Every structure is written in structure tokens, then in C-alpha cells.
């Protein structure tokens, strides 16, 4: 389903979206956090795409490992270890593969989501990026190769949007308690851009 080439397209596209929406992410984080999420992710993805330029024949596992370690070392804060762990877990799932089938791809996303949960110890509904990752993994697991990526994007968007009405229980926004309600979670929004980039990459391919 996805090749190294497609994968690289996805990540580069995600990078573009993160840079484009850097200020939006920062503003979301200013509302219920400390206002660095856009800056953090922009710095991390900038470093990631620089590493990708020298990928020369790496497989998907190696690429994900490289991306994960780069995010861990460059992002910092809460989102660094979380995104980083997600990619490191994807690396284990896709180890040695030049391309993966749809079920293998889904396994990778599931591994990523579980990694975020293991690292951050959040649950569904805690108003974090997990509220995008876990439902997406479940959604993809129920679908097959013929999944509509437009629909997937719409679904991810809904999940992201649903964090608006949640009360944060984990992450910095949790300090706000009920006052976190009414704002989208910055990490959920950045995860939406990551997966919107995936969906759009896959659509273009179709």
C-alpha cells in the first residue's frame, strides 16, 4: 500500500503543513498551554526533513526510526517524546520493509498510537493527541485497502474537533481543569495535519 517514496512524500507534506500552521498551533497552545507547540513541532520537522534528504535506500523501518529519534532529540516538551515514541514504534512494526501492505500499515499506526498511550499514560477523552491517534487506528483497522482517504481525513478532522468539548486530564492543559473546555487540543490539531498529509498523499496516488 505505501512505499518508501510515498512515505517520504507524506512526511515532507506533513512538514509543509506543520510549517504553514505553526502560528495556529502556537496560538492554540497559548490558549490552554504554554504557547510553544507550533515552534516545537516546526523545529522538529525541519530537522526531520533535513535528515530525509540523505535517506539513500533506507527502508521504512529505518526511516521511521530516524524520524522518531530526530523528533525525540529536537522537539522536547510533551510532544517530542510522544511523536518520537510513535515513530519509533512504527519503526519496529515496519522493520526492514521497502513497502507495506494495508494491514501492515494499520499495524504501524496502531503501534504508534499504543506507543503514545504507553509513554503519556493518557486515556481516550483526556483531550490529547491520543484522541486522534487511537480512534484513527481503530477506524483504519475496520477498513481495507479500498478505504476512502477523503473519508479518513474527514474522520480525523472530526476526532480532532471533538477535543474542543473535552476537559483536559493530561498534559499542560489539565492544569486548567474545566476551563480547558472550548479549545481544541494543540497536539490533536498537529496530529490532524500529520494525517491530513497522509490522506492527501494517498488520494493523489489513487
Amino acid at each position, binding site marked *: 500500500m505505501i512505499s518508501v517514496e510515498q512515505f517520504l512524500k507524506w512526511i515532507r507534506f506533513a512538514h509543509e503543513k506543520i510549517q504553514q500552521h505553526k502560528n495556529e498551533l*502556537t496560538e492554540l497552545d497559548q490558549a490552554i498551554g504554554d*504557547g510553544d507547540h507550533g515552534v516545537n513541532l516546526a523545529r522538529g520537522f525541519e530537522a526531520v526533513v533535513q535528515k530525509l534528504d540523505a535517506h539513500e535506500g533506507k527502508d521504512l523501518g529505518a526511516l521511521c526510526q530516524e524520524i522518531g529519534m530526530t523528533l525525540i*532529540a529536537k522537539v522536547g516538551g510533551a510532544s*517530542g517524546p510522544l511523536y518520537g515514541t510513535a515513530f519509533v514504534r512504527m519503526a519496529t512494526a515496519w522493520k526492514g520493509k521497502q513497502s507495506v501492505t494495508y494491514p501492515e500499515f494499520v499495524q504501524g499506526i496502531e503501534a504508534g498510537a499504543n506507543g503514545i498511550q504507553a509513554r503519556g499514560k493518557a486515556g481516550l477523552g483526556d483531550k490529547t493527541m491520543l484522541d486522534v491517534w487511537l480512534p484513527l487506528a481503530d477506524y483504519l483497522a475496520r477498513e481495507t485497502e479500498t478505504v476512502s482517504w477523503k473519508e479518513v481525513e474527514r474522520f480525523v478532522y472530526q476526532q480532532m474537533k471533538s477535543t474542543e468539548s473535552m476537559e483536559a486530564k493530561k498534559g*499542560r492543559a489539565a492544569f486548567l481543569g474545566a476551563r480547558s473546555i472550548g479549545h481544541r487540543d494543540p497536539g490533536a490539531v498537529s496530529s490532524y495535519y500529520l494525517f491530513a498529509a497522509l490522506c492527501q498523499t494517498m488520494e493523489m496516488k489513487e
Partner: protein
Amino acid sequence: MKKLINHPEYVVQEMIEGMALAHPQIVKKLPDTHVLVRADLSKEKVALVSGGGSGHEPSHGGFVGTGMLDAAVAGEVFTSPTPDQLLAAIKAVDRGKGVLLVIKNYSGDVMNFEMAMELAEAEGIQVKKVIVDDDVAVKNSTYTVGRRGIAGTVFVHKIAGALAEQGASLDEVQKVAEKVISRVRSMGMALSPCTIPAVGKPGFEIGEDEMEMGMGIHGEPGIDRTKIASADEVASTLVSYILEDMPCREGERVAVMINGLGATPLMELYIVNRKVAKLLQEKQIQVHKTFVGEYMTSLEMAGCSVTLLKLDDQLTELLDAPAQTIAWS
């Protein structure tokens, strides 16, 4: 944004360089990192490592030195440092007696420090951690993330650092750090916001006649946005929140910290201290020592926090023990 900087991207690196250049007798920079370690690392003792996002200077690099921290790791502004940097610090200061990590209770800090801990343990280094959560502005609950760690952290550095300097074991040092954490409470307030250099605009807005009680040290919103009150009223509110959370009986002894958040002049901090001292006098709580100044700042935020640490004989002795760091001596 009006700042004395060169480029937002390099503020942390250049600050660390500036610190190392200013105080070569006390700290040195680990090459290729944002880590400051003690200039004299010879002694065999338990090592203390702390750190966090930058923008809280003198925390934490200012507390590296004899009798306090062995290393401080600086993340990007308001962003937890990354595991690789933390690992470098742990490896640089470990003298075979183990390393205690002092972490402020933020998800990012906890995760990055824990990852570093796993990596260090994998390399055979004995590592323990404590998590500071002194900010009573946030309700404590095991169900959520619990409270934030703010200025009280500096007392943890001082007291655990003093015990480590005396040659205590890793367990003992961890135990005394936890004792401090169980007996230290803080709360802050802000009059004006601060600007992360890379963001370029203030983290929040606050009216000309408003203040925010319970403000976090990263500009996280507090618990109450009110009309600006007098220094005496602010002091009373902060002290009463703290004492509600941690009641103190007559005759008990405390250390007091009146911490400036960055832009607040010493003059105002002392005016706040005047009231805090009077309130404690009224309640017959004994003040062993008072610290007034900048210990845990928020860039150029205006405002202050008040910290009370309940002392016993052990904590008193360790608090008073000599230390040689940039910001505590």
C-alpha cells in the same frame, strides 16, 4: 517584542555560552549540549541533575555548584529538554554513586526525564527521580496530572544537594528531596505576560487594570483573573492559599521565598515580603530565613510567587549548609 537577543533560534545556546564564560570557576558547558556541569566534578558523591525549559533563569544553571546541582539541562524556551541532552548530563556527572533527577511536574518534563532515565539505566547507571509539585494554584488529584512544579524546586535543589555533598547515599538523598517536596508549597501571580522569543508575541493578554492569580511559570492561565489589587492583598491571598493547603501550627518554623517572575523590581518583592512576614508573625509561624529575589522566573513576566517550606531540624541544617553556585551562595 523588545529583547536583547541576537536571533530567537540561538537564545538558549548563547545564554549557556554566556553563563559558562561568566563563571568558569563554578560551571562548565558540556560540549555540543545545553548542559552546564560543576567545574569541580572530582568528588565521589551522589550526583543531582535538574533542568527544564529555558526562560526560568537563574533556574536551573544558576544552581549548579558545590552543595546544590551537579548538572542542569536547558531545553528550548518553556520546552522540556530532550532525553539525549539529559543522558549526556547524567553520564557526565555520575561518579558511580548514582544520580538523582529533580523534575518539575509537567508531562513533557516527566516523559523526557523518564526516557533519559531508561537510557541511563540501560548503560548501567543507577538513577532515581523526584517530581516537584509545589504549586497550590492547581488542584491536586491523582486522577489528572496533579500540580505544577514552580519555585519550591529551588529548595529541593538546595537541601538534597547539601545532603549529597555530605556523602549520603542515593536513597537518602532521594528521601530528603521527597521530604522537601511534601513540605513545600508555592503560589504565583502575574501582572503582565511574557513573550517566547521564537513566537514573538505575548503568551496571553491581560488588561491594564487586571492581574492573574495562580499564574503558571510558562504563562499557563491561573485560577482567577481579577482587578489589580494591592501588594498586601496579593500577599494575603497567596499566603492563605498556601496555608489552606498546608496548615502550619503556631511555633512551626518555615523558610520563605518571595520570587520575582522577571520584570518585577526588588522594591515590589520586598513590599510583598513585608506583608508576608507580618502575616506569619500574626499566626506565630517562625520564619527561619527569607529569600527575596529571582529564583524561578518566566522570561520578562511581571509578578511574583510566594513559597513556604516547613522546616525541621534536618531541613534547617541542610538549608543553611554552605553552597557555591552562581545564584545561591
